[in-house]
């Protein structure tokens, strides 16, 4: 039985750019003067020199009343309070865990910011410190919310709600943070049967629906780990993963509607592995963009 091998030439390369009707906005590049007026406050991506406000990154201007920021196309995740993130535990330290969230500095998850097993509310004792490793180890994935931002920009996370916590069976997809819109809800149960968590930091977690991807306090660790995922669930998850990859290649924004549209457009391709071909990816993004445009016009 031979497998599928495809080698294409550079001349057959596909351009993943999907055009839209919007006019390109006004761009600012590093060193460019935005305004010479004094009464604006400077936000991210700007600096003042010689009494002018200048851009320091390449991107579009975001003006909120008197605050001017420049938002670049691609950058490390800059956290804000209330954001939902998916992160990976890097280190277990004295009373906290170091979590990697695709930002400039590693984030921290304090021991006092997690729900203790049993759901009690009490002061953390010395035993809790030693049991930290039982709760979360190096390499574990968690979903959490940003509790506060330190002065140097690093984030402090918390998992105090039942919907946050350690993530079990599923697969992780990494994208640029700027492709994720800030929404009210980041936990979605897609109609096709998978649950996704769209982290603001660009990490997207896809898992089968019944477990909702979060470890419940009462269940035993072993049973959750060894529960196998059915073949149809696996196929749907792989399809969703490839659709996300197709949208990212065409630099389209990701949220539950665009992912669902892409999923529906991809159903005409029976075999999930066909979605890895560049032409198929472009086709899916193009049709998804078309559907989004139609909705925006209404």
């Amino acid at each position, binding site marked *: *039985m*031979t*497998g*599928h*091998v*495809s*080698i*294409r*030439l*550079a*001349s057959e*390369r596909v*351009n993943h750019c999907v055009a839209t009707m919007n006019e390109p906005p006004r761009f600012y590049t590093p060193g460019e003067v935005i305004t010479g007026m004094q009464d604006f406050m400077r936000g991210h991506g700007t600096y003042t020199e010689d009494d002018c406000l200048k851009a320091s990154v390449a991107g579009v201007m975001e003006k909120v009343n008197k605050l001017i920021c420049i938002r670049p196309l691609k950058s490390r995740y800059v956290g804000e309070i209330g954001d939902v993130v998916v992160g*990976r535990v*890097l280190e277990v330290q004295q009373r906290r865990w170091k979590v990697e969230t695709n930002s400039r500095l590693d984030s921290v998850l304090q021991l006092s910011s997690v729900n203790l097993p049993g759901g009690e509310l009490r002061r953390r004792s010395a035993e809790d410190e030693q049991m930290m490793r039982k709760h979360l180890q*190096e*390499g*574990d*994935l968690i979903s959490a919310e940003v509790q506060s931002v330190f002065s140097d920009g690093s984030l402090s996370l918390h998992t105090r709600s039942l919907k946050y916590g350690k*993530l*079990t*069976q*599923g*697969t*992780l997809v990494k994208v640029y943070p700027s492709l994720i819109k800030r929404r009210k809800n980041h936990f979605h149960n897609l109609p096709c049967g998978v649950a996704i968590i769209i982290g603001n930091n660009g990490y997207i977690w896809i898992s089968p629906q019944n477990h909702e991807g979060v470890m419940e306090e009462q269940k035993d660790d072993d049973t*959750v*780990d*060894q529960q*196998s*995922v059915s*073949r149809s669930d*696996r*196929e749907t*998850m*792989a*399809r969703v*993963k*490839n659709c996300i990859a197709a949208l990212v290649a065409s630099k389209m924004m990701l949220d539950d509607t665009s992912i669902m549209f892409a999923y529906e457009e991809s159903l005409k391709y029976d*075999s*999930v*592995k066909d*979605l*890895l*071909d*560049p032409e198929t990816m472009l086709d899916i993004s193009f049709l998804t963009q078309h559907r989004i445009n139609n909705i925006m016009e209404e």
Partner: protein
Amino acid sequence: MAGLLLSPTEKNFILQGVQDDFRSDGRSNIDYRPMELETDVVSHASGSARLRLANTDILVGVKTEIDTPNPDKPGLGKLEFFVDCSANATPEFEGRGGEQLANSISNMMQRAYHSSQAFDLKQLCIFEGKQCWKLYIDILILECGGNLCDAVSLAVKAALFNTRIPFVKAALMDGGNIDLQLSDDPYDSKLLNVGSAPLLVTLCKIGDKCVVDPSAEEESCSVISLVVGTTGNSKFYCSQEEAKKLPNVESKCSTIGMNGAGSVAPKTLKDAIQQGLEAAKSLDKALGQALLRERQENISFKKHSYGFLK
């Protein structure tokens, strides 16, 4: 190379997928990810190729030099492999960080090309015992997305296919020293016969099954991986009429290597080697078709060089 950090449940998910013959991106255990190939990207080199396999990006340049042959092999030329892991791929490769990985890959390639049935070094001979060609094959790893060995061997074969060796026009014997005159015309050169050059196939053992073309996540799930080098089939690298004239040659295994901290049962090993030979055949065929297509493009109109620009 330091593997990606993965949680135990993620590893379990990948493991079960492999047992089911359905990986996390929908491929079966024997499917390859889409690849892209371009030859003649570096003009200073005698031959070059760039191969992109999902996230893995390899650039190969071949340089030719005149050298004296080994005294015990007077009629054969020389091949030397050099692998450089560029820091562009990951900050761990800064300075000498990637040296261990680079050495293991270049040793593997050197062993794969050692056999005369893999690559005939006689075609590099100029004057027996006195002068021969030495090919420096320089491999630059620009990005790592899993499955380096396969990508490297494909890129090397494509670069050798693209290599032009200048014709020797005249030779002056000057008291035992030979002075060669090479043809100045870049088109007055000969191509190498690389149809039988070996291709490496990496098989990762995950659970009980072996997968071909592992992604970076799958590589960090496996405890042991097997690399099988198989000689190619010259019939795929020439046109239909010429292929009929060539005799049928069975592909042979030219090197086997193992990486990792685990162990494997003899039966699994045998099955894996068989799987590797099959995969190498399909790779060879696809590569041959792509290279012939590109050569056809060169002949029909002036080829645009894309490189990294498109």
